[in-house]
């Protein structure tokens, strides 16, 4: 059989292309920015003192951080699509984004609130509030679906939690319009505030999340044949769901806490991989993070470059690019059908 070798070669070529693209995007991200310093390749090789500060303290952590966020979203998206056996599943499916937004809204209100009961929310900080909100929303989703036994119940509970928390956030914004601008930055996503501490956190979480994902990748393969077949193969579905939901919750909560809500990367990255490569889940869970990382780096580059010296929210760019890509995908599938 030569086909496995062909498949392995195809995967290797794909990974090399993706890594080369990532390196090019990283280099591009280092020389393009909103600061007034000279933008050239020479500057990158021989930076002066001011440029070195911009390079090492702003652009490099931002670029690496954006890659980590994209990688986490790609990983969580691929996991969600495998777990729910639904190509439209995405990392925010369990209400994490709405929960994080609600947490941030509460935190913003609490910062200059006179309501004593809300003082704890202010002390959490925006990142802590976002993470707490995301984890609370996932927990609520699992509780509403009475555990993790039924995929459909989980999906429906996720939709309910997202809707209710979204409505609650809107109500907060209605009563406290002064927090609207800060909330907007969060809801549209921004990589501008990523520093080395964020990068360290994101990289650690990415490493942690990769472990259960790869361990359970063959479980996700088995799940594609149906729940009965997967169980008959000795797979414990509750354990698999708990492990992977916990991983998704940790991953998305961390990304939302660091950069806000970045739409479509988690949905798009697995699709890009599947459209360009025939993969099982183990390969997908390696390729999708690489693809997600490159996608978010590209989006970050676009948002910094397109209206220089100002910049667009990265979430707006990913939504436009991701939406367009999925429409093209739909159009192509309809045409082929």
């Amino acid at each position, binding site marked *: *059989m030569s*086909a*496995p070798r062909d*498949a392995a070669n195809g995967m290797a070529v794909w990974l090399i292309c993706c890594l080369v693209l990532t390196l090019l995007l990283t280099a591009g991200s280092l020389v393009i920015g909103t600061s007034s310093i000279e933008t050239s390749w020479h500057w990158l090789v021989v930076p002066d003192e001011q440029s070195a500060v911009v390079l090492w303290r702003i652009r490099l952590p931002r670029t690496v951080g954006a890659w980590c966020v994209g990688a986490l979203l790609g990983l969580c998206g691929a996991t969600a699509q495998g777990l729910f*056996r639904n190509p439209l599943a995405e990392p925010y499916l369990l209400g994490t984004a709405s929960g994080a937004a609600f947490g941030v809204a509460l935190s913003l209100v609490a910062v200059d609130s006179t309501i004593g009961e809300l003082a704890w929310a202010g002390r959490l900080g925006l990142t802590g509030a976002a993470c707490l909100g995301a984890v609370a929303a996932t927990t609520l989703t699992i509780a509403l679906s009475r555990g993790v036994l039924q995929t459909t119940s989980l999906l429906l509970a996720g939709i309910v939690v997202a809707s209710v928390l979204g409505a609650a956030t809107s109500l907060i914004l209605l009563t406290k319009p002064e927090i609207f601008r800060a909330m907007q930055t969060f809801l549209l996503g921004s990589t501008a505030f990523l520093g080395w501490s964020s990068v360290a956190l994101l990289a650690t979480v990415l490493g942690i999340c990769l472990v259960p994902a790869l*361990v*359970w990748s*063959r*479980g996700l*393969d*088995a799940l*594609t*044949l*149906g729940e*009965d*077949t997967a*169980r*008959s*193969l*000795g*797979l*414990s579905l509750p354990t698999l769901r708990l492990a992977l939901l916990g991983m998704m919750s940790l991953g998305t909560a961390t990304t939302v806490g660091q950069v806000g809500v970045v739409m479509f990367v988690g949905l798009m990255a697995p699709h890009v991989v*599947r459209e360009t490569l*025939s*993969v*099982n889940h183990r390969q997908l869970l390696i390729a999708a993070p690489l693809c997600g990382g490159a996608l978010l780096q590209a989006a970050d580059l676009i948002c910094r470059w397109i209206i220089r010296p100002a910049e667009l929210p990265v979430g707006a760019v990913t939504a436009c690019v991701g939406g367009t890509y999925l429409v093209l995908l739909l159009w192509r599938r309809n045409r082929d059908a």
Partner: protein
Amino acid sequence: MVEARTVLSCHDLTVGYGKRLVLDRVSLNFAAATWHAVVGPNGCGKSTLLRALAGLHHASAGSISLCDRPLSAWPRRARARRLAWLAQHAGVTDLTGAEVVRLGRLAHGGWLAGRQTDDDAAIRRAMMATGSWDWAERRLSSVSGGERQRIYLARALAVEAPVLLLDEPTTHLDPPHQEDVVRLLREQAHGCEVCVVSAIHDLSLALAADRLIVVGRRALIGHGTVREALAGGWLSAAFETPIDVVDYKGTHLWRPALDP
């Protein structure tokens, strides 16, 4: 003739969906080296019986025993090595044929273990037996329904379990391949001493089995040899209509009662 030992049995098994009772106090013994065909009208509970026997559907009462031990007492993976299951409808996946069949070996190596030395041989044996080796590297989404069914069947065979529970293994297959499957099930039972239990719609195919389990609406009509089933009129009782079975050169065939 030495009677084959019982490897799977159920006693007073009662299964339903919510308040709807599908099987009421069914007791059966399944011997090794025997092909048991489960027949009955649509909705009588053939698939439900198989799912309950596989431990995939909760029984509201009764007990199931696998290799002299309660089914629920077996650790998940140990049970998966002894009892292989083929669903009536399996998902269409982008995995290759060989990757799907390899899933049948998971319980042998565990989720973390790498490729075992005898896995490749078992996969090849199973795919050769079902005639699906040619599609080993093709995506399941790109093969026909019949080809896919043979890959699924190979996945169940690759487990190399002493008990095979197959829900409609001949679905989507053309007549020559249905015949191949019947030959394969007989070979598994008589050559490999596997206890094969299969739900089968086609009566003529089912009549090729060693023993018939005839299920009517809610009740088990009978469990015995084909001769016992025909002599007792079990099929007519189960389908609630006369079932005409003819003997053609030693093979029992169902003859539809159509107007000339």
